[in-house]
């Protein structure tokens, strides 16, 4: 069996990276926010 190509593959890739990307962005945002006092922010 061949995996679906084109649009379906793109959707799957997008969802997969969003599942892990959104938590990473959340973690980075919260950490950068907590780091600001070090620079007087």
């Amino acid at each position: 069996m061949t995996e679906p190509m084109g649009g379906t593959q793109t959707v799957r890739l997008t969802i997969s990276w969003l599942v892990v990307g959104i938590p990473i962005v959340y973690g980075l945002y919260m950490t950068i926010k907590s780091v600001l006092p070090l620079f007087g922010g």
Partner: protein
Amino acid sequence: MALSFLDRDHTVASPGYSRWLIPPAALAIHLCIGQAYATSVYKTALVQHFDTSLTAIGIIFSIAIVMLGVSAAVMGTWVERVGPRAAMFTAACFWSTGFLIASLGVASSQLWLVYLGYGFIGGIGLGIGYISPVSTLIKWFPDRPGLATGMAIMGFGGGALIASPLSRQLMALYDPNYDPTDAKSVASGGAVAALFLTLGIVYFIVMMFGVFTVKVPAPGWSPAGFDPARVKAKPLVTTANVSAARAIKTPQFWLLWTVLFCNVTAGIGILEQASPMIQDFFREGGESSVASTAATAFVGLLSLFNMAGRFVWSSTSDFLGRKPTYVMYLGVGMILYVLLATAGHTATAVFVLLAGIIISFYGGGFATVPAYLRDLFGTYQVGAIHGRLLTAWSAAGVAGPLIINGFLDAQGKPGELVAADYRTALFTMVGVLAIGFIANLLIRPVADRFHESAEHTDAFAEATASDEASASGRR
């Protein structure tokens, strides 16, 4: 059958399956198990809830890290045989069950249940989960193994960045009296129990996403435009294969074990002491010019350097070569430690920059080592060899804090130390890095006598063929 999704038929990718689906599958596992670095968030709450010492609560994390090393070393060959899907599923079950049992332990005020749940059972999930995507990533990215493993192992660093703020927000939700913005506010035991229950469920769902997404490439697959001859042309990169059992009999394995041990020992020394260290470096007349909130922020900043180093340096090693990359980690690391000891107290920015680069090398050392193993021992059982090498991490987890705390205890009391009190400990770390530097320089290609015969190239495919042969024999 309910678990048919773990079958080998479902694990081998069909033609057209994008290899860029594998890094998010690996990240789904590593982002979850990386929570292990965020235990400090609820440490005080557990101390109060169980009315015990910080040491008694610290044991939970220690058991988990010891179990990580033990299970990665012991289960590595099994992980190679059953493939990433079954291994990730097992890791998800252990990791989540660990949280659920720990939640029960907190709710019923039974500390031993937390040791058993989070420490012992969760620790097994940590070890299996850590190594489960490694060899799969290397098979999908023979052209960029450093990039691929760097992405996954970056997730382990990133897991704490997510779990720390998320845990604070969830505990505030479960305990209205807890204020996450107030450093003195402590959450109730009930809030921690509910947090563990939530994390156990959420992590299981996210890890199952990884389970359903991960696949191994079909035998003989290679990425478009990939020329194995170019890989072979690089120094120290083999196209032969060495089994895990044989690898631990080679000097290369133990030299690399020493390299990882030294790199991690030096890095943990700073990570362990980060918050009081920055305050001590800028203490004059008993008062530090760095506020405790800024010191906490410094720990967060180091986490960012740790995470970034894993991805950036491991990816760069694909171009620099693995041995020169470790020459940089250990050689430049020595210079940075000397600068930290002698000039770190001159300005906060200098201190932060030096410590940040050192920690990026610490993270980079973790992320680059699977690709180094693949260069030396081939892809056959690289995940299992990686599992055995991680015992260096467990050993360094004991040695690093012992060295730094031992020297600092001899210098004075916490809260009264100054920059000069750190010099002996930091110069000792320079010596530790020098040992790792020499060990790295001594690494040569593995002797031919350790190589497997040509038919041993893929442990997973071999296990599949063996199972099919025994099944047809029974028919």
